[in-house]
């Protein structure tokens, strides 16, 4: 179980770094999905190790929620593209003090 959790943590860190560093909106959304799915991997590993079913159930819910989030994310991305003509995250700079 430990090694699975280490792999999950590494994937989670890659996702975190992707969200922080990358400037392309689609890549940021992909990184967010990566973070969610690393948690899924952790849940499946733990629930297999402990011979429990509850972790697997959690994973199904997470997949559903991630799909809903992706729908919202792409909706927002399309609106953003229509208004700015780009999906560069640095162009989201109108709200300032």
């Amino acid at each position, binding site marked *: 179980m430990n090694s699975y*959790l280490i792999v999950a943590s590494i994937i989670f860190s890659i996702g975190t770094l992707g969200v922080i560093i990358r400037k392309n909106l689609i890549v940021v959304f992909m990184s*967010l999905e990566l973070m969610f799915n690393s*948690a899924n991997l*952790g849940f499946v590993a733990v629930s297999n190790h*402990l011979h429990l079913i509850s972790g697997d159930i959690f994973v199904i*819910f997470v997949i559903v929620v991630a799909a809903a989030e992706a729908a919202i994310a792409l909706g*927002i991305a399309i*609106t*953003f593209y229509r*208004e700015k003509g780009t999906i560069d995250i640095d162009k989201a700079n109108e709200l300032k003090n």
Partner: protein
Amino acid sequence: MHNVPSIYGMNLLEKSMLGIIPETVIIIFAFIVLFLTFFGNLAKGKNSYYLSLIGIGFSILYVLMLSGKNIYGFYGSVVFNSFEVFLFIAILFSGLFTVLMSKDYMENSGMPAPEYYSLILFGISAMMFLVSSNNLIMIFLAIEFMSISAYILTGYIKGNTRSTEAALKYFILGAFASAFLLFGSVFIYASTGHLNLYDIHSFLGNISYAGLINKSGGIGIKIYISVGLVLFLVGLAFKMSLFPFHSWTPDAYDGAPTPITSFMATGIKIAAFAIFLRIYSLIYNFNIMNFNDILWLLAVFSMTFGNIAAILSSNIKRLLAYSSIAQAGYILIGVIGGGLYGYSGTLFYLLSYVFTTAGAFAVVVIFENSDLISLDIKRYSGIGYKYPFIAASMSFFLLSFAGIPVTSVFMGKFYVFSSAIKSGYNWLVVIALLNSAFAAFYYIKIIVKMYMPDKEPASSSLNSSSDNLGITHGVIDDGLMITIIICLILTLFMGIFPQIFINFANNSAGSLWRI
């Protein structure tokens, strides 16, 4: 169903359903409002507005009918007792004020209304589910449900780049926070093998009772659960907008439609604090690591940063956003203070915060709708003479934020700070008091601005000579007026007779430990 005298006559499902009736009523009304869009004529008028109000009213009625019951439904996923009653009422009031504020705003902006109101209702139900959830799956689902409604509502103004940008920033950081929360639950699950909070509580209780947690066998568990709880705390701190995780707050509050800003500032914050209180009281107390020190730092930085940034901002919505970060810091002091006294103080503070914030935002909506006064604080000069009542109520809300006696937030601060002193956090209270004094500066600055004669040349950025003529008093929407009056009365009432509310809060906080 609620008239059944004995709960034992029902089967498990009926008994479980009883605990989620208030949420279910809201969801049913949300769907009715949403289906209005199929019928062109019905959707045009104010039907969705009135239906939403009726739904919230029914839900409040059901909460009051169910109060006093102690329900533990869906195999422990959902809890309903007096803690929930208190917070449901606070959340429903926050939703009620949002809906009341929205009518005028939606009519002025010409946006399609039914989806808007149904999203508000879905958001309210998600917050109520979050408050009553008692299982890591339920917590994650409710947080996501609540956040997704809020993302859509933030970006609701069509063709407005600021609104879209706010939604984008809020979405990325919100989903980021949810991922942290989720990854934290992996580690909690890995160390304990349970998802139900009560099960996790008793598991940790058994381990620490057996003295295992600091011995070789327990070290693995200790590391896992510490990592899990810290990640979980990060996820919740994003939703509570505490200092290092606050960066979405000013942008999202600024770009969102103003009624939604009020909704985010009151409802989401209450729900996040409520679930944090539940988890903190159940899990964080064990001798795993010293979470109070982490919270101490979060509270101090939130207060200080929020107040400094608020002084520097010139936009009223950004100012209130930064002030809400500072208020979150004050509320956290009650959690650090701990015990029945600290938790009931936290609940009292949350309730008083709802009325004060909703009132202040209602005033902002009035001035925004009038189109003559922008969100810039400089434009507020002289309105004290043009609209005496509104300016006076805005002054009262701002004084309440500043913590002047006779207002509700003063009593909230009093309870929260005294609980921290009881637990020996003297320096924390000293810093908080200094911060409150510091914060009074920018609240009073706005009041002074409102009562200063309008010296600025009216021509600069906004057009027109009609600027100084102002709107007539009859224009102000009755929904906004009702909001302001209810908020005024309750802010004053909670300040003068806090005993009634603190008893209620004591009773609610006590039920956190009633497992």
